[in-house]
């Protein structure tokens, strides 16, 4: 069959690669690239094993250092001491920065990191650079991630004694489809093919489904459906999922997530210890970088201690006659990070609400990720869920990567004689997808937490008499106003037959297929006609391949409201 005349597909380098089937399927490895740490796991034929690097570490620091102009990452590189990472030569937290424009608050909060993050606040990608021999060498989060992935790939290849190509990667729930393309780009740069991207708590949900299935086989508990609430909080993100599990199938009921995590706790606490931090750091000279680095290490250390003791003594000499000597107790720590914990709480409440699940129906509460050791977080989850204890069957820092490895085996078509891979995750859309209409509003066409694959449509109409063109600007997110969401792309419908405003019906249809590819279709129909006035336009999203926040403003300046749309009201 011929391609329709009006299909517009992105020419992005990461699209639509078909995997050929072979007699011996290659088992995809699972990778959990965290904001601060990373791990790799694989199904070895009977169980999931976590790979170790040459220094016998399961957890590797996620960073790349540009010292001596030859970049090396945390997989192979051995830090001589912690401060080496904070000298300005190392780039880390790439998962927080990837796919974000310089107006993003998350980018702004990264400015006190030792390497350079500069913003012009015009909606382009931020200027990110590492200090190499006193010169700022510019880089991108994709490049850093790709260098890191190359090392991970090499490590896995040595250990598994085979070439690695297919991977299952975990990603934060709040990642937009644009950010996903950035991750895919980094993988492609590293010679990896992304078989599946799993929101982190859904990887944990898959591991939970396997554990429940095993419990049924061993006759512990019945095979009835069990609902679990999963909270995964690492350095960069806090994600929540509600899953209903039965017979090895994990149906995700709802997801909620936000770019809030251990990094925010660290920065809040640093500000608490040194309120003038911003002023000190704005110069970004070598001495300032060093001082901030010292403070960062001391604060990190203190937070770590607070997970097992009620108060901690901080004693650090930042140089330049700046000394910090302070005792911080648990209560103070919780007060300083109130905003973080409140956000976590609201995510849990929202997720339970979206899943239409009452707390008493939740069988297990699973808290994982680097922040799961923080007493306040554990107590908070138990208090929201009205429970006395948390699920104990998982290693909190290994759960996500193990789930990714299971998915890697399942998606590679591997079966297990004992039924250990008789598993399935049914995913939902983590964010709503919609268009700009009714002025500056974000109008969702596919609501969040819709089971995938899916197809939804919504009708709009013109705002001006004889309006012949309309702009379809596609966003993804949760904000009411478009600027609070991620831009995925835009296209123009032309040739709308002249008619009074409100008469032409402009149908916008969004389709997410089984491979999680999003297509946006737009068609125009005039009343009384059963046929489209113009050929239906179909566009694969996202179309933007760089931070394009400024494009929307340019569109605005050029067209004003001339190409606007409004939703058609439901009749009463």
């Amino acid at each position: 069959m011929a391609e329709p005349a009006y299909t517009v597909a992105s020419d992005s380098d990461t699209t639509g690669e078909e995997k050929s089937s072979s007699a011996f399927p290659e088992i995809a490895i699972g990778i959990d690239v965290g904001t601060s740490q990373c791990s790799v796991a694989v199904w070895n034929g009977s169980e999931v094993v976590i790979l170790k690097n040459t220094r016998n570490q399961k957890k590797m620091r996620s960073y790349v250092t540009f010292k001596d102009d030859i970049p090396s990452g945390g997989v192979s590189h051995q830090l001589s001491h912690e401060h080496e990472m904070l000298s300005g030569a190392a780039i880390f937290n790439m998962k927080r920065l990837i796919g974000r424009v310089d107006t993003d608050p998350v980018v702004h909060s990264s400015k006190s990191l030792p390497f350079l993050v500069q913003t012009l606040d015009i909606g382009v990608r931020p200027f990110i650079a590492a200090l190499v021999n006193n010169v700022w060498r510019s880089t991108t989060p994709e490049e850093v991630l790709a260098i890191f992935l190359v090392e991970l790939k090499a490590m896995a290849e040595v250990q598994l004694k085979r070439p690695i190509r297919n991977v299952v990667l975990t990603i934060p729930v709040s990642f937009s489809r644009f950010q996903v393309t950035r991750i895919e780009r980094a993988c492609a740069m590293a010679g990896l093919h992304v078989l599946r991207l799993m929101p982190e708590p859904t990887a944990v949900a898959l591991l939970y489904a396997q554990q429940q299935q095993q419990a049924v086989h061993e006759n512990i508990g019945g095979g009835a459906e069990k609902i679990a609430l999963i909270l995964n909080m690492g350095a960069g993100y806090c994600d929540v999922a509600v899953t209903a599990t039965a017979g090895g199938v994990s149906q995700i009921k709802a997801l909620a997530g936000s770019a809030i995590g251990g990094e925010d706790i660290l920065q809040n606490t640093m500000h608490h210890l040194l309120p003038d931090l911003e002023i000190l750091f704005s110069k970004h000279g070598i001495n300032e970088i060093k001082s901030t680095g010292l403070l960062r290490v001391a604060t990190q250390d203190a937070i770590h201690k607070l997970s097992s003791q009620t108060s901690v003594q901080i004693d650090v000499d930042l140089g330049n006659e700046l000394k910090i000597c302070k005792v911080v107790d648990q209560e103070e720590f919780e007060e300083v990070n109130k905003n973080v914990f409140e956000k976590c709480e609201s995510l849990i409440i929202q997720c339970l609400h979206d899943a239409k699940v009452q707390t008493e129906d939740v069988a297990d509460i699973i808290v994982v990720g680097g922040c799961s050791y923080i007493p306040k977080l554990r107590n908070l989850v138990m208090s929201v869920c009205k429970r006395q204890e948390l699920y104990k069957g998982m290693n909190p820092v290994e759960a996500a990567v193990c789930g990714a490895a299971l998915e890697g085996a399942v998606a590679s078509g591997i079966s297990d004689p004992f039924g250990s891979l008789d598993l399935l995750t049914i995913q939902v859309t983590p964010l709503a997808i919609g268009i700009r209409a009714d002025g500056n509003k974000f109008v969702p066409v596919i609501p969040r937490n819709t089971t995938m694959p899916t197809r939804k449509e919504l009708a709009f109409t013109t705002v001006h008499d004889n309006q012949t063109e309309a702009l379809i600007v596609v966003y993804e997110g949760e904000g009411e106003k478009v600027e609070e969401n991620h831009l995925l792309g835009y296209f123009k419908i032309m040739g709308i037959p002249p008619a009074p405003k409100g008469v032409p019906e402009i149908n916008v249809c969004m389709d997410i297929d089984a491979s999680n590819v999003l297509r946006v279709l737009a068609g125009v129909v005039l009343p009384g006609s059963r046929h489209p006035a113009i050929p239906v336009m179909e566009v694969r999203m996202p179309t933007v391949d760089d931070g394009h926040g400024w494009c929307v403003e340019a569109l605005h300046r050029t067209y004003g409201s001339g190409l606007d749309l409004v939703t058609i009201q439901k009749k009463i």
Partner: protein
Amino acid sequence: MKLWTPLSTILRRTLPSIPYFPTSQFQSPTYNFSPSPPSSSTNSPNSLTHNFHFPLKTFCSGSPENFHVRCWTCGHVAKAALFLVCDSCRTIQPVDQSVDYFHIFGLERKFDIGVENLEGKYKEWQKKLHPDLVHSKSEEERGYAAEQSGRVIDAYRTLSKPLLRAIYVLRLEGVDVDEEETLSDPELLSEILEIREAVEEAADSQELNQIQSQMREKLSHWSNSFANAYRCRNFEEAQNSIRRMTYYERVNEEIVKKL
């Protein structure tokens, strides 16, 4: 609330190459689809997917007229009309529109069904049909998996929600319900306006919860009255109940948004 989702599963498979808005016939290897006869009773008459409505006859026929279906890969002859997966080689089969949602869930075609067992059956199907599980199979089978799995999702959603189920059973009887129809009953109109006002002016979540529980009561009342009307094949009354349920459901949605 678009009942016509089955047609989108057709679109889903052939999406990139569908001749949009064909003037006559859309040919598929197994079945003939033709544009639905002009009627004023679809809920979204200008829907992009509209022209792929199935003629009601094909849609409704649960009869075993296609009993000689064979597996498209191994040639195994289907033993039953419900042939989603081949019993012999486990290959996923193309969608057969004559199999209705009740059939998929092994249920008798009626409104009063127990929804407790739906989820289990739904998961059972997904374990056989979900596209993730045939990732390494042929493109053709992956297409069927996406279609079948999508259809089971639609079936599950439709059957588990009373309002959607009500609309569906009526449609199987050849009766279309226009959910977007303008309200003509002045009594119902003023009642709805009143409730909406109450929702808008509700001071706190307690008040909203109160209205919500009233809506639940009304919904269950009209759901019962639908069940009776449907049993007596009084489709006029059944449609009336659906209209009521639609409005109360919308109020409910608004409350949920505000809560």
